[in-house]
């Protein structure tokens, strides 16, 4: 895992906000280069890697998707040298004041998110977490310098370094994307020692946090027979203990609901039990909140499976994940793919599902 751990830590130091994924795509492409037979970039910037299978042609295709975009901020106006911002993705404004950020202007500028003094805010904001429209980003530069270096539409990304906590937990910003991409990469590494019959397309999608534009488009040309989507899910903890949260260190969550093909879910569950791998079932009553929601309805429709990695403090700069959960998620996918027979689709017919 150390190789993958270094890769993950590198991902967590990069910007790569939704719609602007270039920096993170480059690093993933470097990592996948030796693990796949072919690499392509979609018209919207998603990265497609092909690892050819060993079965007879024409081979069926499985798509593994993890989104590579991260949440962050975007400059909407400049007032007296300070920046007003809007969110890209579901940023939680409660934790923003005091967060170090980088403003990607004509050059990268270190900055902080700041909140005006409580007693000077409108009464509707006083004594409460301040909403995003009242927060400011301060670069320390003069109004004139800011006018030269920053303009509306510039990106602002979190500038916190990843930290390895005790107990095999890693924390940092954008683990949301990092953990999922690392799990798919772990799967590719494991597959190097295996001889899967199917072609495997690994896809690092763009814009999941905003419009799912990557998930809605990447499968169109690839036309996989099935898609397996990896994303993070809410980990249990004090204040987050109901049925929508899951134990860390208890392996991947297996999603179940209308967004997920019931027979493929069942095969994953059976396999996890056979391998004695910890996992739990995550009910997804409607929108899975993952790329699977987009992928499922591309072209004629694509059967989807969703694997979730439990994560604490979602959409904050201190997201935390258990490294073992990432490894197990990648490993389970590889085991599943290695066991897929050429006629697998005949065995997971919708009408046969329980």
């Amino acid at each position, binding site marked *: 895992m150390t190789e993958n751990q270094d890769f993950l830590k590198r991902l967590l130091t990069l910007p790569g906000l939704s719609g602007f994924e270039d920096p993170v795509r480059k690093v993933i492409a470097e990592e996948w280069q030796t693990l796949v037979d072919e690499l392509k970039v979609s018209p919207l910037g998603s990265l497609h890697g092909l690892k050819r299978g060993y079965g007879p042609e024409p081979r069926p295709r499985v798509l593994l998707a993890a989104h590579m975009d991260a949440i962050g901020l975007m400059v909407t106006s400049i007032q007296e040298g300070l920046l007003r911002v809007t969110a890209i993705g579901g940023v939680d404004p409660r934790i923003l004041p005091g967060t170090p950020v980088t403003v990607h202007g004509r050059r990268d500028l270190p900055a902080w998110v700041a909140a005006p003094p409580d007693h000077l805010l409108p009464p509707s904001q006083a004594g409460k977490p301040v909403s995003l429209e009242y927060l400011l980003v301060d670069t320390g530069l003069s109004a004139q310098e800011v006018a030269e270096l920053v303009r*509306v539409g510039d990106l602002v990304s979190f500038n916190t370094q990843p930290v390895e906590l005790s107990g095999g937990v890693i924390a940092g910003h954008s683990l949301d994307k990092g953990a999922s991409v690392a799990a798919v990469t772990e799967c590719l590494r494991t597959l190097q020692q295996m001889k899967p019959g199917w072609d495997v397309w690994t896809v690092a999608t763009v814009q999941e946090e905003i419009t799912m534009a990557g998930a*809605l*488009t990447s499968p169109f040309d690839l036309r996989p027979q099935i898609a397996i989507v990896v994303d993070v899910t809410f980990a249990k903890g004090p204040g987050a203990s109901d049925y929508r949260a899951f134990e860390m260190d208890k392996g991947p969550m297996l999603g179940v609901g209308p967004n997920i093909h019931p027979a493929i879910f069942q095969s994953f569950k059976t396999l996890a039990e056979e391998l004695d791998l910890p996992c739990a079932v995550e009910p997804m009553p409607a929108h899975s909140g993952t790329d699977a929601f987009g992928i499922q309805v591309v072209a004629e429709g694509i059967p989807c499976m969703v694997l979730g990695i439990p994560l604490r403090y979602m959409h904050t700069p201190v997201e935390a994940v258990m490294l073992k959960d990432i490894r197990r998620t990648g490993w389970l996918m590889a085991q599943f793919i290695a066991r897929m027979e050429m006629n697998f689709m005949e065995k997971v017919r919708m009408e046969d599902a329980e």
Partner: protein
Amino acid sequence: MKALIKKFVEAAGPSGFENAVRDLVKAEIAPYVDRIEVDALGSLIAWKGSRQPGGKRVMISAHLDEIGVIATHVDQNGFVRFTPLGAVRPHTCLGGRVIFQNGTRGVIGSERLEDLARTPGFEQMFIDVGAASREDCPVRTGDAGSFDRDFVALSENRLAAKAMDDRIGVAVQVEVIRQLKASPNELVFVFSTQEEVMLRGATTAAYAVDPEIGISIDVTVSGDTPRGIKMETALGKGPAIKVRDAGMISDPRLVRHMCAAAERLGIPVQLEILEGGTTDARAIQTTRAGVPAGCVSIPCRYIHSPSEVLDYQDVINSVKLLVELLGHPIDLQ
């Protein structure tokens, strides 16, 4: 161009009922394009030029439809109950007038309001078409109508009308088609239907056209009115190049390319971040395997009211910007 704008904005074409507007557009562009088709959803698709070395297939889209109303029930005294077609705001309705597709005019009234501080909902409103009974009423359930309001030039550059959203885009696109003499690109101009009800026309048109680049022309919100929405865009400061809206992040390469084109021309432009709403460009971006997409917006006040106001110079500059953009290779770097 003001006469053209007046002609388009005063035509009636609520979402799903765009025939009259489409006919006007067809007549204006026919001599300037190679081929015209009307697709299954009623969008007008016009092809101009072929792809030369360095060129691409580019889809440009402006929507024909406008927000409006549809009759849901006629009561026994001849009053027409209705529901909105698209995002009509109820506070802009009372005292307004509508015109149905069959030419029937009516005024919007409401039940007695208990609390004047509260905007009544559509369920409390009705349209009075001057009928005395259900039998006498020329409007039937399912009849669509649009708001009825004349075009007016408030001053030399400030124009007011209903349906500036998006007839101004339609007018700009028609003018671009007329002015463009040569291009290395295969240009496919789409006048789409049903944008106001989830981008339906552009969704299927984009699939059919299969473009390599997509650009929509639409209005955007203007942040320059008293205690209005917080937004940097203002009337008269040039076309707005969309960075993002609620449905799309523009391709950053296309945004850079558009800014560079404006700089070459020496025309002012603004960068747009719109927090609510989206345009046809979103439908183009997510068609098939994905298409780099962007949008040229015309800043507009009071969007989705019967009096939308914009600046004529922004319109003229939008035409210039698009002629420059489309007349040259679009190399995304």
